[in-house]
């Protein structure tokens, strides 16, 4: 595989790196808010993957116009899918933060090791 081919997959490399960074953050951090930040990064990587795969070079929004023929369109379906996934991600983050707030009220801390010691 030569350099150009590698660069051609640029978005997918970014996807893989961002995914790993997010997953690492979720696993390695003990602070619950930082874990949620990692989770958000992890999910954003997937959004990038979906958006990348629908892009067709020179493609535009799939709207049929009079007098325009042979127009190349990008695939709109992954964008619709990922819009749904973004909504899911936002609700997960909101619920996660709500749980962190309640943990903070009940335990007085949001560090995972201190919570484990408290029980």
């Amino acid at each position, binding site marked *: 595989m030569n350099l150009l081919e590698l660069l051609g997959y640029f978005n997918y490399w970014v996807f893989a790196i961002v995914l790993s960074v997010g997953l690492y953050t979720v696993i390695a951090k003990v602070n619950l808010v930082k874990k949620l930040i990692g989770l958000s990064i*992890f999910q954003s990587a997937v959004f990038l993957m979906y958006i990348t795969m629908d892009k067709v070079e020179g493609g535009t929004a799939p709207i049929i116009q009079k007098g325009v023929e042979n127009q190349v369109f990008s695939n709109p379906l992954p964008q619709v899918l990922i819009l749904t*996934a973004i909504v899911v991600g936002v609700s*997960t983050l909101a*619920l996660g933060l709500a749980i*962190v707030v*309640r*943990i903070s009220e009940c335990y007085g801390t949001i560090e995972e090791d201190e919570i484990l010691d408290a029980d």
Partner: protein
Amino acid sequence: MDLTIHLPVLQVIVPMLAAPFVLLLKPRGLAWAGATSVALLSFCIALSMAVTVAGGGHFSYDMGGWPAPYGIELSVGAFSALLLLIVTGAGALSLLAARPSVDQQIEQERQPLFYAAWLLVLAGLVGITVSADAFNIFVFMEISSLASYVLIAGGPDRRALPAVFKYLIMGTIGATFYLIGVGLVYMMTGTLNLADMEARIGGVTDINPILVAAGFITIGLALKAAVFPLHVWLPNAYTHAPHMVTVFLAACATKVAIYVLIRFDFFVFQANLPGHQLQFSLFLLPLALLGILVASSVAMFEGHLKRLLAVSSVAQIGYIMLGASFLTQAGLLASFAHMFNHALAKGGLFLAVACLAIHYRDLRLDQLAGAARSMPLTAAAFVVCGLSLIGIPGTAGFISKWLLIGAALERGFLGFVLVAIILVSSLMALVYIWRVVETLYFKPAVVEAQGPGEAPLQLLLVTWVVALANIGFGLFPQFPLALSSAAAELLLGHTL
């Protein structure tokens, strides 16, 4: 107008649309009544579809009238019908019994919210089961997961909060892995419909993304299904959840994830990927065996009644995966029958725990000593369901263990090793159930019960209905077995 063809969609939208209305039912007890009647209605829908499917029928429904590969398809075959029965049955029975326990654990003004979340979990789980669209399954998975985090965190026990946080993190990672896998398959095939994927994967130019997708989907769903060693979220989440929530989720939540895992793998991957059947089998068989042995041994030494039963669930998931990893008609039949029977046994056990919890706030075993003297009927129901979990002849658990042993023996020499492991783990189950029975019946009471006599009639009655169902389906297992057998044929028909 013929309503029958709309049953698959009604199955989902009835609980989903009812949830916001339940929120409005502020007066005491109304929210419970509303949610329960909706859950019972769902159960009736599932039952009527199961009867049709058991008679050789099949439901297919195009959402919005868009035909299948383009629109979203809902389909109910034998496998989905079995799962629908488990999910709606668990939802309806646990809601029927829920009121006394929920009144004790959840404040009055928050109860409408609690029951609305319950219906959303139900809607999500049945949505996963009826959907034939890979992305739709993801969305329903997140609906049910988000609502079940709310349910688990809703109780008075503060330890539920770190537990549910861990569940949220691991559940989201699992769902996102599934999403990556679906994305990769879509990238190569251009379709989200499971049946259409199956048809198109054979023609893709590069098989590597599909292989990666199979890995992501298997791991993601195994996380959701709490397959050993990805089960670490389960014990604490089930232990500290409100008691009725544990009944509901322990009976059906992980099984739905197993259902998607098996269905996705058999429908989409096995027919098309060379050597995938062997990989599936070699990957899951050791995990299943380890799960059975490790979780059973942990349960033997566990001191908290709810955690003991939760850890035992991990071992039971091992049995289900073991049957599926055989990839034979007999193995799948045993696996599906065990899904049904374990839901009965574990649901019954957790119902008995909920009865005990009415009078005993602390559910550690040493605190429960002598409880059978003040609550003899509850303890007896626990014994019946416990026997079913162990697999004593005459109970439902026996049927599936027997089928599993039969399926294992088809494997030649390896089969004898497997049978030995199944027997050893059944003995372990005997040990941990006996520890509870011994504590309840034969130890002198340490703590006085906080109220006199038995659990409230409503709770006790449902517990006994489930306990008797354990015996009933042990003596007359025809109906679940017919569905399981048809489901196994359906899945294997796809791989041939």
